[in-house]
């Protein structure tokens, strides 16, 4: 029998008996980051491809999710920080070796870009605004000129109008910037984890692309869900099926890599293969979060009538659980003891 134990009573909070320094905030943040990246990726992509009108949900409506997701994600991240009042230190330096630093700066870039993107489409998406609404009415009054009927509304501030004009004039460039930033954001959510080679489960380069694909998949699913156009739904359904296949492929690869790896990674894989995460991962992520919605989407394309919300919701929930599982399980895996 082999025993390995700490005998001096070490009981550091969130470290012992097993590492648990990250709780719900980080996986939620990673999920929302991935979602925002996915939505923005498709918006900028189809804008660049000049298919704005054909896929108007993707380009104009779905992006509204992005700033909301990012803001909630950032709040979650802030909640996770243990020395919160010093968060501004993130922006006093650029540290290329730190994915956390990358993330901070990418978010710094993509957040305003996403606002601008949403802003330049607002007039089109909401041609008429209703000032009598309780919450939104107040919000409208803060940013727009109050006027009868709310049709053809104008920004309240001149600089907003100028900014809008500038952005529309340079929309291609803006789209390219967003496309690049969204890929970095999507990859970052995976790289963040894979940079921690002290956690054998995360110590794999597949995590970056896997999280990017998963993020794109949640983005595609959201667009599919929001879209009213059958053609657009069909496109994103197809994209989503492709992404699901790639994701499954990555997941298989991930585990093949682990099984071929050192003992600590074999043990990590075991957490999902008979270990405590088998149910969550196998059922909720792989079956209910990937395979089943994939099947539903294929069936839909073949004429079966399945409400688009069903596969979309399954993908979104699966993506969220996926991040929870990876973050929780990764912290359990270790080199020592």
């Amino acid at each position, binding site marked *: 029998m082999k025993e390995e134990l700490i005998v001096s009573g070490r009981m550091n909070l969130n*470290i012992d008996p097993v590492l648990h320094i990250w709780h719900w905030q980080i996986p939620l943040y990673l999920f929302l980051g991935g979602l925002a990246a996915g939505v923005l990726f498709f918006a900028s992509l189809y804008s660049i491809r000049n298919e704005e009108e054909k896929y108007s949900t993707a380009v104009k409506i779905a992006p509204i999710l992005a700033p909301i997701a990012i803001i909630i994600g950032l709040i979650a991240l802030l909640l996770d920080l*243990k020395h919160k009042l010093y968060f501004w230190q993130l922006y006093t330096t650029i540290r290329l070796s730190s994915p*956390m630093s990358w993330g901070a700066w990418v978010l710094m870039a993509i957040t305003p870009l996403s606002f601008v993107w949403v802003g330049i489409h607002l007039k089109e998406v909401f041609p008429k605004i209703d000032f009598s609404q309780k919450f939104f009415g107040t919000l409208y009054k803060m940013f727009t000129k109050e006027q009868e009927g709310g049709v053809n509304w104008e920004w309240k501030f001149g600089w907003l109008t100028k900014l809008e004009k500038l952005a529309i004039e340079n929309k291609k460039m803006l789209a390219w910037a967003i496309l690049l930033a969204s890929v970095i954001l999507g990859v970052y959510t995976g790289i963040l984890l894979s940079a921690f080679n002290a956690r054998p489960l995360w110590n794999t380069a597949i995590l970056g692309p896997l999280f990017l694909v998963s993020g794109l998949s949640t983005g595609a699913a959201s667009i599919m869900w929001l879209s009213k156009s059958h053609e657009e739904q069909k496109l994103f359904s197809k994209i989503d099926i492709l992404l699901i296949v790639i994701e499954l492929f990555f997941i298989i690869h991930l585990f093949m890599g682990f099984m071929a790896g050192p003992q600590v990674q074999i043990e990590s894989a075991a957490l999902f293969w008979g270990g405590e995460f088998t149910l969550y991962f196998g059922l909720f992520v792989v079956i209910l979060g990937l395979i089943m919605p994939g099947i539903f989407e294929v069936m839909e394309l073949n004429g079966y009538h399945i409400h688009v919300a069903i596969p979309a919701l399954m993908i979104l929930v699966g993506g969220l659980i996926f991040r929870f599982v990876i973050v929780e399980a990764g912290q359990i895996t270790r080199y020592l003891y």
Partner: protein
Amino acid sequence: MRYAMAIDTLKCVGCSDCVVACQTENNVPHGYARDWITETVDGVYPSLELEFRSERCNHCDNTPCVRTCPTGASHIIEGGIVKVTPGKCIGCGACIQSCPYDARFSSPEGWVDKCTFCDHRIANGQDPACVEVCPTHCMYFGDLDDKNSNVSKVIANRKWKVLAPEAGTDPQIFYLI
């Protein structure tokens, strides 16, 4: 200058004096520890191997904690000592995740705390508190670049191992075996 520590597992009895000495010297709050004792038992009665190790931050040469820190709070000072500046630390936990030795923890105030090799004592020419107190004299501290230092000598003359070498961190605490 490259500070390092060598710990003789043939002498260590796991008494944990190093832990309590660190706690009092550095005013580490109750319930937290910058160093600790690991016991490993292997074999079947009565053919057994027992080893005690006094463990702490390995002040690695290849420091994932410093690499992943987004603010530069985790940094390396003279002699390769890895330190944290509380005023720069945001408590994101990245360094904690990146340490294969679980040597870091979040202090009650929120910044990340860890072993400092007692750099405040080294500055006065003293050994770290854990080394100075050890009743079995099983710990050696010094400069690896100085071939005549205690630590260089024992490493040159004895068989040793480091912890989790496969994590690739190039740890600077050597366990004499």
